[in-house]
């Protein structure tokens, strides 16, 4: 059922590339309802993988499980070749959750929220170091929100709040980016801005896992697509050519060379 694209053993490929995410025979149950069944997924270093599927297919659950946010019922799950329960190297992971609409009870500035991205690198009871502040600054710059850093998160529009969440993950300076539906409720221009932000990171060798409804503007970045249907992986291979799930077939398409995506600059569209 699953095309054997991950036929070679993990960490092989000349012995130099480790695996970033490795799920073997993963089953995940939410409230006694099996949500994910028989998941076998290997994401290697430097890959950009899209997790596709319709609503309720389990794609968000898959990445939240991979990050240890939801416990697995069965299976072996590893992050950076370490079993999930022993994994402590969290500064290698940057997570961008879906845009949350409810803001918290107490106001928080943009810089404070982005600063939370540095927690995996900070020591208890010690203030932020220079490197931390610089990372926050760079992250805000790359989503073009540096001038809003002292504003309350709630003063920003939905698209801008999403950029804050992206900046928070960038501030981690991780090896692995995990983005949950960065195109849900986000306008096209902002999605293009995110592509622009991710492009140099991908070029520099970052691993990216993106949950998507459809590839949309992210298509140019994607190396590989994993399609979930009803909690099972039904496809793992080159991204569907037309970027649309509706006309998706379960056989391989030769990868289209994408060089005509309009290059629009940054976020200010």
């Amino acid at each position, binding site marked *: 059922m699953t095309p054997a694209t991950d036929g070679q053993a993990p960490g092989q490929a000349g012995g130099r590339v480790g695996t970033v995410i490795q799920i073997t025979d993963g089953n995940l149950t939410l409230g006694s309802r099996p949500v994910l069944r028989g998941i076998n997924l290997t994401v290697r270093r430097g890959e950009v993988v899209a997790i596709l599927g319709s609503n309720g297919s389990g794609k968000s659950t898959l990445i939240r499980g991979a990050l240890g946010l939801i416990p697995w019922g069965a299976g072996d799950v590893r992050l950076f070749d370490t079993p999930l329960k022993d994994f402590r190297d969290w500064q290698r*992971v940057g997570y961008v959750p879906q845009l949350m609409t409810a803001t*918290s009870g107490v106001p928080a500035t943009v810089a404070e929220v982005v600063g939370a991205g540095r927690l995996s690198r900070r020591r208890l009871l010690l203030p932020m170091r220079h490197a931390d502040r610089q990372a926050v600054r760079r992250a805000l710059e790359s989503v073009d929100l540096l001038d809003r850093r002292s504003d309350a998160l709630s003063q920003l529009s939905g698209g801008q709040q999403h950029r804050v969440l992206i900046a928070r993950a960038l501030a981690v300076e991780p090896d692995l980016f995990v983005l949950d539906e960065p195109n849900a409720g986000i306008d096209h221009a902002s999605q293009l801005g995110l592509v622009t932000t991710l492009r140099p990171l991908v070029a520099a060798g970052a691993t990216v896992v993106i949950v998507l409804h459809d590839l949309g503007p992210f298509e140019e970045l994607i190396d590989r697509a994993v399609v979930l249907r009803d909690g099972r992986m039904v496809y793992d291979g080159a991204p569907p050519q037309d970027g649309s799930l509706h006309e998706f077939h379960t056989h391989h398409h030769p990868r289209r060379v994408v060089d005509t995506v309009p290059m629009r600059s940054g976020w200010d569209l």
Partner: protein
Amino acid sequence: MSFLDYEFMVRALRAALFTGIAAPAVGTYLVQRRLALMGDGIGHIAVTGVGLGLLTGQSPVWTAVAVAIVGGLLIEFVRERGRTSGDVALALIFYGGIAGGVLVTGLAGGSAQTLHNYLFGSIATVDSTDVWTVIALAAAVIFLAGGLAPQLFAVCQDEEFARVTGVRVRAYNVLTSVMAAVTVTVAMRTVGLLLVSALMVVPVATAQQLTRGFKVTLVTAMALGGVAAVAGVVTSFYINVAPGATIVVLALAGFVAAWPVGSLVRYRRRVRAPFQAGDDALPHTVVPELHGHTHGDDCGHPAVPHGDHVDYVHGGHRHATHGDHYDEH
């Protein structure tokens, strides 16, 4: 004769100051997690602790701390598990706590007045051992709430993200509950168990009328709480009223004073917030002539950035100069 010449007043002021600072420090995290009434719930449960202390002859402060911590953890457990029936479960815990307290106090032969001292505070009867207990516990809460602010903030703001940065979310949630429980019992002698939640929440509500950031809110709320607590004790000395109620009324007065300022600030912010830069092809009305008024920095109409130009808000319209005419955006 100044109030500072009275030994009991000095003790009361010390206890009030530390309580006043510690309560909003924890309260900020509770409000952040939308658990503003958690302090109230713990206060109700602590009544049982007081009763147990009276019954067993132990110091009611320590039995109250113990029972309040158990109650705080119970509330945290309910919060973590039950999403839907959470408030009903909390209500059961609250009423069980206060009913149990009244019952146990009765069994211990305690009078209504004994319980009254804990329900509404009795700061003037605080002896010097009590004061040092209060100060030590409050100082510990202030230290943790301040020192672990980055972690606690992250956990309260976005629990899942905090977990992905390696923060042990459950440990910090438990810590928040324990800090809340300790604060409630500390404040029991100053404002009383029924009013403690006000001292935890009201200064935070006041602070966030004027602040935009979390750290600023935290510090401002702590300062406001300290001021209200000290001022409340002093006021109650001169006009001979219950200090606990005075403290809470002063804290509320602060909120009432800050609220109009806060609404004004928020209104101005809303008016000046940039319009979303839209598609230029969006339909807009072209007003063919200039209307005898030149918009500028000092024309009095709010100037709001809109993409690459400025709209002037003008009697419900958005005017933007475009060559020799105005566009209505």
